[in-house]
C-alpha cells in the first residue's frame, strides 16, 4: 500500500543550525502539507503546497521556514536557523485531490533543538 515516507525519523540539532526535513508523498498525489506537533499539544498546520507553489501558510510559517519540491518526488521543509521552540514532531501529508478530503500522513520527523 502506498504511503508517505519521511526522513529523518529523529534529528537533534543545535540552536541556530539549518535543518531540512524530507518527505516523499504518495506518487500520484498533487497536494502536499506540513504539520507540526509540539509534545503534548495539538497538531498545527504549517503550510500547503500545490502546483509548485505555496497555497496557504499559517502564522507559524515565518521567514525561517521554506518548502520546495526539488525533483518531483521529494517535498522538503527547511528551517534556516532553528530555535528551541521549533522542537516538535513534523508531519508531512499528501492527498490526490481536494474533493476526497482525506490526507495521508507520514510517520513524522522528530526535531530536537538544543
Amino acid at each position, binding site marked *: 500500500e502506498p504511503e508517505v515516507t519521511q526522513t529523518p525519523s529523529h534529528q537533534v540539532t543545535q540552536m541556530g543550525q539549518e535543518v531540512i526535513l524530507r518527505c516523499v508523498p504518495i506518487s500520484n498525489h498533487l*497536494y502536499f*502539507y506540513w*504539520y507540526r506537533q509540539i509534545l503534548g*499539544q*495539538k*497538531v*498545527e*498546520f504549517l503550510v*500547503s503546497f*500545490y502546483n509548485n507553489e505555496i*497555497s*496557504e501558510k*499559517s502564522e507559524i510559517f515565518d521567514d525561517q521556514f521554506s518548502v520546495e519540491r526539488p525533483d518531483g518526488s521529494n517535498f522538503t521543509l527547511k528551517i534556516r536557523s532553528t530555535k528551541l521552540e521549533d522542537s516538535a*514532531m513534523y*508531519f508531512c501529508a499528501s492527498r490526490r485531490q*481536494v474533493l476526497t*478530503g*482525506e*490526507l*495521508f*500522513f*507520514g*510517520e*513524522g520527523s522528530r526535531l530536537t533543538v538544543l
Partner: protein
Amino acid sequence: AQTVTQSQPEMSVQEAETVTLSCTYDTSENNYYLFWYKQPPSRQMILVIRQEAYKQQNATENRFSVNFQKAAKSFSLKISDSQLGDTAMYFCAFMKEGNTPLVFGKGTRLSVIA
C-alpha cells in the same frame, strides 16, 4: 476561524466495552468534512472515519461509528468492542471544502485495559 474542541484529554475503557469520544467544532461553513484520526505510539496518524457535512447519515467503519449532529456542531466517535490495539491518541479534525488545511482538536488519549 474554525476551532475544534475535544473536552476529554484522557479516557480509558475495558477491553470489549464501548467508549465514546467527544468532539465539538465551530464554523460558519455549510459544507465541510469531519475526521477522526488515530495516532498510536508508532506516531503515524491514521484515518479512522470521515463524515461529509451534507450527508445526514452517520458514517460507520466496522467497530467505529460517529454521531454527527450538524445543528449542535458535534461529532462524537463511538468505538465498539474495544481492542487493545485501539490504544492511541485520537484527534478530531475539521476541513472546509477545497484545498484547505485540516484543523485539529487537542486530542483524547484512549487506553484500552485488558
